[in-house]
């Protein structure tokens, strides 16, 4: 039997994977993927809880998250393309002109 807690644990694991990805990856594109994983991990949680409570709100939230994630991707990819055009790399370490 798969209960709510399983979903939530899955969600937590995915979230952690996303987090680790955010911290470890040096490529901007992979960073973007990792943040998507983060958001979708939460989506799973929302959907499961929504089912558990028999309440639609959670699913609505999940939809909104999907929508926001999509627009994020749009904006993010746009920025990255510009960056790549200028610098020819998507390595994070290439962005250190501002510090201190």
């Amino acid at each position: 039997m798969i209960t709510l807690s399983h979903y939530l644990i899955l969600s937590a694991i995915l979230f952690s994977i996303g987090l680790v990805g955010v911290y470890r990856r040096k490529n901007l594109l992979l960073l973007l993927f990792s943040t998507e994983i983060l958001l979708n991990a939460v989506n799973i949680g929302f959907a499961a809880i929504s089912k558990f409570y028999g309440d639609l709100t959670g699913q609505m939230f999940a939809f909104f998250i999907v929508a926001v994630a999509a627009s994020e991707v749009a904006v993010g990819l746009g920025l990255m393309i510009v960056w790549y055009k200028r610098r020819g790399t998507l390595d994070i370490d290439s962005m250190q002109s501002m510090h201190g």
Partner: protein
Amino acid sequence: METYLYTALFAPLVGSLFAALFADKPKNLVTGIATSTLLFVSWISSVVLLLHVAHGEEVHVKLMDWIHAGGLVIPFGFIVDQVTATMMFVVTTVSAVVHVYSIGYMDHDKSFNRFFAWLSAFVFSMMVLVMSDNFAGLFIGWEGVGLCSWALIGFWYHKESASWAANEAFIMNRIADLGMLIGIFLIYWNFGSLQYDVVFEQVADKDHGLLMMVTAFLFIGAMGKSAQFPLHTWLADAMEGPTPVSALIHAATMVTAGVYLVIRANPLYSVVPEVSLFVASLGAFVAMFAASMALVNRDLKRIIAYSTLSQLGYMFVAAGVGAYWVALFHLMTHAFFKALLFLGAGNVMHAMDDELDIFKMGGLAKKMQWTMILMTIASVALAGIYPFAGFFSKDKILEAAFATDHYVLWTILWITAGLTAFYSFRLVMLVFFGEERYKIFGYHPHEAYRFMLWAMAPLAVLAVIAGFFEHSFVHMIEHVLPVEEHHISTFTFWTLIIVTQAIALGGIGFAVWKYSKGGFSKKWEETFIYQLLFNQYYIPKIYDEYICKPYGELSRIFWKDLDLKIVDATVDFIATTIYKSGMVSRVVQSGNLSNMLRWMGVGLLILLLAAIFYSPVR
């Protein structure tokens, strides 16, 4: 009478301000004449007042309110009673003489006008001092004479030694003034007023300890002005000033202010025998102490200064044993003959181009006959030989000491009388008689201006005859000062006189004998005693070594090491620490996106850990 009072008081001030107008102008005889005239006016007023109060009356006026704060009310009030009138007479007489004398003495000085401005200002301050009817007013005069003394000692300010001596005098006096100030505070908080009459009325119902404190602190003030041990060193150094100044300020008037204070506050002192005894003992000590230093000194003016010191000691003994009127009497006679002595010394200095070493003089009697005569009169008076003024006052002091059973004091004073006679005539002998040593040094002495000698004449006359006024003086003074008859037998009385006269004459005789034969041998100068006395018991050296230098050193340490390196450095340290921590915390801002994301993670982690492990009661 009020008019006379104000005239006596303010005439010198007017003179001073008038002279001050010309202060930075070249010499102008008018200043000298104007100030002298105004002083003469003041003298006349003083004499009128003296005659007026001689029969027991008093003049008491209030000019205006000075300070009024809380319960403290201090008016500018002036009182002329018999003590004040005597002081006024002494001050104006000596001042008038000195002013006239100075016209000649300062003849060639380019700061002629400034000199008279300060000299008259001094007289004004002194008048305030003696005429004030309250302790605060006295303090005004007290500080005022200090200021003028500072300016006049340092009159030739281009000389390092003069300006140094001026500062020394001022600062030494300030130390004592603090004591006086504390005394005044004590009086105010316990008597509720600073008026003499109000304070003295309440003496009877005050606590003995309190009175002791009051008198002790006031006496500290007196010690400074009257240069009593241990605050005496400034007086000898003050001889750097022009000689008329020494005559007026450092012999006749200002230095006796301390004695005046004790006399004025006699209702307080007479009920505290402990302090009075201390006053007397210190006086006796200083009398001998100073006389001993005068024995060997080679400096013309310093010898006289030490003699002044010694005579002040006499006065304090008199005041200390309760014979206030005797103290005042001696104060008066002393003022006359000591001023005369100084002025004579001034003539000598003039003649010798400001040379002071008496061993470079000798045989001046031929060139300066009149000066010699005047100085000898003064010296005889100082030595206390009958019938000169000194005899009457000094003898009374010895008698009072003896009669009040202070035999030790009497003995000291008695010996000192001999010493006094000796050093006085040592001086006279070395300066006026014997070998004409000045020729070796190429001096061309000459007698002073005639009018200077004439100016000295009144003092000479007074030095001779003042003593005969003893009875009228007593008659006058008994209105304000206690005059008790001493119960000693006629035999003792005469014995005392004879014994005293004997030692004085002995001193004179020894001096004349010794120095007419060429004085002491060189060997004497190598002995320890001689060195000790010659170096003033090493006291100035000790002060310099153990007070001045450490003070300077400590100040520098406070500044360089404490203020800059600790107090200020702490403040700067706090500031730089904050600034440096800014530099350190910049590492957070590495600009690397990974790091920035990690910081977010760290933040989250801390929050989560806090959420789990930190759970305060809701």
